[in-house]
């Protein structure tokens, strides 16, 4: 269950970056001018348990910021968020991946950061590698894999996370058609298990098929909210 009430998020963007002592001294009498940038304005919505919410919008419309607020990475400048349940924030693929470490080391690193228990990672290590189709590369350094392999690995690890609420920030465009089909079977399990999902995606067909409710964000404000067909028809018209 997610309850978002009148959330706004403001960022102060400095016009100059003063990052050293010397710069501070030299420009002591010149105040820095900041740009007040509202990434989100008065966003409110409710998402009951087990429902899937899709968020669409142009680049820069505040989608990722909203997800980060839900994840607890940012705190709202105004408004409040109430969430009950364990949140799994998949705000980027392969968080913590280190190119100089091997695939296996990265599985444990990324898995630990995502909250997957060590026991489970050890047990599912082979499954993770098989699902990502990179079993042969288990001891290769991550930097030697193609970006597609890395994304599939990241996705494969992410599928082992456990929680009640999943926040997915544009992580669906991974892999070829057969791989995507594999992922779909897992999404079906998530739906069946009654998990709550909030996802940001540009894949409108996916959103149409899987979401129960949608939000269209434009310049930080909700301009459309409701059933996928309704929101998407408006969004596609623009």
């Amino acid at each position, binding site marked *: 269950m997610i309850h978002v009430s009148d959330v706004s998020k403001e960022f102060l963007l400095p016009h100059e970056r003063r*990052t050293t*002592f010397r710069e*501070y001294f030299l420009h002591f009498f010149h105040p820095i001018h900041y740009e007040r940038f509202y990434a989100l304005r008065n966003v409110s919505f409710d998402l009951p348990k087990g429902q899937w919410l899709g968020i669409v919008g142009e680049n820069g419309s505040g989608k990722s910021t909203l997800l980060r607020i839900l994840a*607890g990475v940012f705190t709202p400048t105004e408004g409040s968020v109430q969430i009950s349940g364990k*949140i799994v*924030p998949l705000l980027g693929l392969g968080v913590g991946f280190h190119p*100089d470490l091997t695939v296996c080391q990265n599985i444990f690193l990324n898995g*630990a950061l995502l909250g997957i228990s060590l026991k489970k990672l050890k047990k599912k290590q082979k499954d993770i590698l098989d699902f990502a189709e990179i079993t042969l590369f288990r001891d290769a350094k991550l930097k030697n894999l193609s970006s597609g392999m890395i994304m599939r690995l990241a996705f494969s690890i992410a599928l082992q996370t456990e929680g009640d609420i999943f926040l997915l920030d544009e992580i669906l465009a991974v892999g070829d058609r057969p791989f995507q089909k594999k992922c779909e079977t897992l999404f079906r399990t998530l739906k069946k298990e009654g998990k709550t999902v909030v996802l940001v995606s540009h894949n409108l067909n996916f959103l149409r098929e899987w979401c129960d409710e949608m939000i269209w964000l434009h310049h930080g404000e909700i301009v459309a909210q409701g059933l996928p067909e309704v929101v998407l028809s408006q969004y596609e018209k623009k």
Partner: protein
Amino acid sequence: MNWDIWKTFVKLDFLVRYQHSVLGFVWVFLKPFLLFSVLLVVFSIFRQDIPYFSLSLLLGIILFQFFSDATLFGMRSILERGYLRLQLPFSSEISVFAALTSAVIHLFFALGLFILFFLFRGPILTFGGSIIFIFLLICEGLLVGGISFFFSLFVLRFRDLGEIWEVCLAALFYLVPIFYPWDIVPESLRAILWWNPLTQIIQFSRNAILLQKLPEWHQLAVLFAICGGLFLLGIFFFRRRERMFCEQL
């Protein structure tokens, strides 16, 4: 406080730090030992003035190295984990504690080396001496903790703090009696230099372990107050200002 993330950060630090070095983990022992060897030869003129000169020198180096490592790792901890903080919700405090933990682990290994030397060349270790030494280590831990909490946030605003602190550490190495005896310090300067908690920690440690000379209660109380106070100030400052500084990442 997420224990798993803390553990992961410490492991990650060791993996990355020693993955590519030829000597790998041996470097943890080698670094203090090499410095010790060089200083032992260069400053052996002080041999007569300091009892148990080699052990005294090694202990001083190890305690100073811990101070240096902990403050440098601690200061950079938030910057290094910044990219993770933008995708995962965890308190930045964990980054700092993990960095301090790495430094403590380095300290324990170096102390292991010291114990080896001590068993061959040192006097008998008294129970009182060991307790005092443990207390002094805790004081040093609090001291570096406090400094790290302040620095880890300041360095976000002033990125050259790292270089500045490295120069300060280089100077500090000479202001603390590591390779010279405390008696050489002129009376006029003693009062000022004694205020440095690191000087107190190193001197008390040497006296306690090598000379069986234990410090007075009130001296320990003052030291604990300074170190504990700095730690509390550091952590309060950190908790209040964390968000303000971190959004500048």
